[in-house]
């Protein structure tokens, strides 16, 4: 340990204070939007003069919002499944494979993480114009898959690296065929990595907005795009309600991911 927290004396209170301020700084906008979604003012006034559930009622009564949420969920689930499947195969190659250019390939897989999303969006938009994929479900899925895959590959490779291949060998000598060994031993043993990859992939697609704006058409748009376009037309608290629900799902999934990580280290 570089620093022993218990031996810091007065410093520990200062450090704790800085920590609390940081947490507040990060969380305050979210708390703000949650409060506004329950406020009864038409004009996003803070603090709200009174409380109401009216905006949630409006939100659920508007088929366009529900349509957008359904589209978001559909895309996120497809992206999640593909991202885990492709991420698993890529990770197997990167971790187990012995071939030239393996490190280059690993770097290549991770580039979407460091590339500005807007550049990916412009490039995809141009490419999809030729292919006629803009404004289609396939276009959305491909775009989100590109940004989700690096996270999937990182988490699955991480799990695979801590898994000793000798364990698979042991399963094979026990009489399991190589495929049986992979399905009955390797996959269950790295399942925490697969679950984390699934959750992160879902979340990345679920709250992605830049690519989605480029891909969206009037008939096909995701929830974050709907929030953004509505925001440009009028400042209704319905947006706050929609945002709150977005955040709620994200928080639930993050907690699930944390619980899985905890279960793994048990």
């Amino acid at each position: 340990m570089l620093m022993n927290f218990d031996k810091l004396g007065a410093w520990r209170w200062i450090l704790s204070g800085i920590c609390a301020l940081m947490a507040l700084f990060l969380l305050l906008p979210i708390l703000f939007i949650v409060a506004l979604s329950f406020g009864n003012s038409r004009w996003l006034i803070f603090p709200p003069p009174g409380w109401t559930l009216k905006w949630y009622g409006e939100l659920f009564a508007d088929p366009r919002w529900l349509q957008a949420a359904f589209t978001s969920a559909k895309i996120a689930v497809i992206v999640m499944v593909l991202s885990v499947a492709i991420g698993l195969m890529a990770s197997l190659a990167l971790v187990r494979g012995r071939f030239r250019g393996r490190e280059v390939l690993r770097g290549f897989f991770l580039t979407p993480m460091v590339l500005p999303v807007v550049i990916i969006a412009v490039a995809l938009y141009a490419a999809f114009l030729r292919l006629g994929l803009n404004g289609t479900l396939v276009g959305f899925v491909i775009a989100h898959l590109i940004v989700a895959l690096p996270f999937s590959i990182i988490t699955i490779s991480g799990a695979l690296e801590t898994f000793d291949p000798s364990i698979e060998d042991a399963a094979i000598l026990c009489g399991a065929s190589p495929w049986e060994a992979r399905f009955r031993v390797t996959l269950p043993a790295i399942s925490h990595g697969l679950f984390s990859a699934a959750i992160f992939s879902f979340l990345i697609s679920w709250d992605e907005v830049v690519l989605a704006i480029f891909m969206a058409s009037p008939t096909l748009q995701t929830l974050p795009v709907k929030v953004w376009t509505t925001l440009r037309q009028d400042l209704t608290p319905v947006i706050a309600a929609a945002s709150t629900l977005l955040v709620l799902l994200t928080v639930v999934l993050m907690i699930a991911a944390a619980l899985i990580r905890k279960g793994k280290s048990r």
Partner: protein
Amino acid sequence: MTSPHLHINGIRKTFGDVVATDHVELEIGEGEFMTFLGPSGSGKSTTLYILAGFQDPTAGDIRLRGKSILQTPSHKRNIGMVFQRYTLFPHLSVGENVAFPLRVRRAPQAEIAAKVKRALSLVRLDGFEDRMPANMSGGQQQRVALARALVYDPPVLLMDEPLSALDKKLREEIQYEIRRIHQQTGVTILYVTHDQEEALRLSDRIAVFNRGRIEQVGTGPELYASPATHFVADFIGDSAFLTGELAEVKDGRATLRFTDGTVLADVPMHGVGAQGGKAELMLRPERIDLSDTVGPPGASLPVTVEDVTFLGNNSAVTARTGWGEPLYIRLNFGHPMMASVSRGDKLHVRWQPQDAHVFTKE
């Protein structure tokens, strides 16, 4: 002669230009405990991996009960193996780990339950069925691995340095357990280790590996009493080597001349050496005696005592020959010389003719 239980027939394995094993030839009887002993990189593990089917030999054959197993994939060889690293399936309980080989063989549930219970009892882990591997010590994990490898009654059990990750005390405890399990089950075991003490403690026979080849195969006492090569003599037990020139070679016996002119006649010799070639005389510290009188010709040398260290039940004496090479002698407690020997004494070392060995030097 009936065909051996397991026949490793001229196995050769190369990785590019590197020869991992060469001409490995060994016959192992049913129920035998055979140890592959050698330093790392000597080819002992490669041979084991070829047996397991994880590697294919470049040349040679392996026959189990008279039938070649090289065309059989690993999972159909029915061989048991305990690995150097902990290889329990982390997501399965101890009971399910041991049941795994039976489940993939589609054994009926009642049989699985009975066999798992018996296997765990064999390694003295009764009642551990519901434990998870992560909550067990290294020694316990290796015992579960042993139960898992034995639960389907394999014709051969391979063990690849299974105790190297454990501390010394635990290692000795589990060595004793392995010996008991071997006696109790009668399973044929191929055991790989680089620890000569472990090999001597466990094995019926030991195959000493060096640079991809088997240097000698024999029981522990055989290897100790009549090592075939310098390497074996050096690897099993303590030994000192004195370098001289072959003055005469006749009928497997040699006359050695050392640099100061000292001559030793009529010493049993290993290997082919030409007159005038270099050779080494091997003597073991505990097989030579210190005396103030000269011994019979060919079994005695004059030495000067250089150092004496009392070690409790024995004293370690370092002496130097007339031409300056060191020689080590172990005097057991109660030896008549023990009290009197001191630095600078000019004495004679003596030995029984069968305890000296001459190896030609490459």
